[in-house]
């Protein structure tokens, strides 16, 4: 099966979002697993159609926020009580209510950084090159065209069978994407 070595996948081009949604669901029903949809806008229902696992990002973000809060509190406690205690009229050194604004700010900072960097990392970005960028038609994926790609590494992928399967979905064009 040398076609797997030289092909990244088969790319079907559609003009309307509902066609892409239907195509994604059909491909999934037909047993394809390494299917990806590309669209200029996020499409509601696409994750369900493709069977994408919900992202762990919210959980990671919560952890990032908790970490930020813990660091903020520990820093202030250590400075105000242990490293640099200042006796101001006998007031308690561990003046926790006054520490809360910075704890809050650092929690937000930690969570925001985790949300953004986590999103990029999980998405595998930055990735300057990708086989799809070699396809001239794919430039329209960020304008007004909708693409479905069945990747060659899919267990069910067979160039002729997959091609005839995709052409039954009546795409505007069908493109072989070299690796």
């Amino acid at each position, binding site marked *: 099966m040398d076609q797997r070595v030289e092909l990244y996948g088969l790319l079907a081009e559609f*003009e*309307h*979002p*509902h066609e892409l949604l239907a195509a994604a669901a059909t491909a999934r029903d037909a047993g394809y697993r390494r299917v*990806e*949809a*590309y*669209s*200029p*806008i*996020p*499409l509601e229902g*696409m*994750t369900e159609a*493709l069977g*994408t696992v919900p*992202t762990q*990002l*919210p959980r990671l973000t919560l952890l990032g*926020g908790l970490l930020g809060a813990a660091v903020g509190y520990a*820093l*202030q406690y250590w*400075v*105000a009580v242990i*490293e*640099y205690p*200042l006796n101001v009229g006998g007031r308690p050194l561990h*003046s926790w209510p*006054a*520490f809360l*604004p*910075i704890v*809050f*700010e*650092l929690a*937000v*900072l930690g*969570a*925001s*950084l985790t*949300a*953004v960097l*986590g*999103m990029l990392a*999980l*998405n595998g*970005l*930055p*990735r*300057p*090159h*990708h086989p*799809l*960028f070699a396809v001239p038609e794919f*430039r*329209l*994926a*960020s*304008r*007004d065209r909708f693409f479905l790609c069945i990747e060659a590494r899919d267990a069910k992928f067979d160039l002729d069978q997959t091609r005839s399967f995709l052409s039954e979905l009546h795409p505007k064009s069908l493109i072989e994407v070299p690796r």
Partner: protein
Amino acid sequence: MSGEPARDDTLSDGRPPVLEPGHTYATVTDQISSIVLARRAPRSWLGGFIVALGLLMVFLYATAYLLATGIGIWGNNIPVAWAFDIINFVWWIGIGHAGTLISAVLLLFRQQWRTSINRFAEAMTLFAVACAGLYPILHLGRPWIFYWLLPYPSTLGVWPQFRSPLIWDVFAVSTYATVSLLFWYVGLIPDLATLRDRAQRRVPQVIYGILAMGWRGSATHWHRYQTAYLLLAGLATPLVVSVHSIVGLDFAASIVPGWHVTLFPPYFVAGAIFSGFAMVMTLAIPLRAVYGLQDFITLRHLGNMAKVMLTTGLIVAYGYLMEIFFSWYSGNEFEWSLIVNRLLGPYAAAYWSLIACNVLIPQLLWFRRVRRNVPLLFVISLIVNVGMWLERFVIIVISLHHDFLPSSWEIYRPTIWDFAQFFGSIGLFLTLLFLFIRVLPVISIFELRELVHATSGEEED
């Protein structure tokens, strides 16, 4: 601004639409990206940029002279130790707040009309925070050691005082700047990919390609992207409230008459939104006229922003009223003497101008005819910007120049360098804004495509 009422495609409920009809994915993409990818900028862009750059030169000159000479060139001295520097800091940071509010809060409330204005409002936030941050640093006297504000194990063995609102401010403003930058950049990623794909020449392709980080619009990416964007919106919303509350606490935690008021944090937040929406309007109205963006920034947007201004303006007016009531009701002679001094003292003209700008003139926005009159809205937004600057002047200078002991009363007069620094910072802001308009999409393209998708329905695209 010209030829405004020519079209009147109002919806069935009598409101103008958020997007003029007839647009497709392709037309919105092409129209917005062509602003950036065009070889030449319009003449009005060039003219505006030259003026902005001239003001930026004033800023650089004033800053260089300040660093060489010291803050003695400014008019502030004991007892008025805070003046233009802190007025301008609060003014700029307040302006920034509308950008976050539009992009985060209106996103959470699923307000479709935010889409056309959120991008440049976020840019405005970023540049306003940059201008704001410069003032406290320049006011340090030795700004090159500003990093002493941060907690780090220094050889001096000294640490910041974490119980002070001023150090809270350091954390709040730096977090706010970081989160605003993240929010803005994450929003830009799909549009940078669009520009990469639309660019004809090699250099823009490479630059936008690097900035887009290889975005391909895959469904899995979109899923995580939307999750991250929503999370950021949820995080930015309480953040923006906390930032200006802490700015309010900078004053309220002191015992200076006129500052020691529990009302300050919420009243400062409302004032920030008020001035920020005024600035968005000040920027949006010329922008849509110059680039022909009336289809995207419609009368609906301007009308809604006018309503937000009216509402927050009323909250601010309530704040002014309560300041007077509190000082009378407290029975504290210093507080009451402050109010008398504010209303009738040497700076009374500033106070009454503030009331005219922030309380009286915005009442015109009750009338629909005013909310649909674009030139008038532009003038009102400028007046509110001035009024909110005067508000900070009144709060800061009038309280400090006239505190407890008559022996420490002093009249404050700004010098030419105060004004040079202030107008110069407007130049810095505008220069950054003009560069942004030239090289990045001023309106979020992918969100406009989503709006096309949402408003046109599936079958016709």
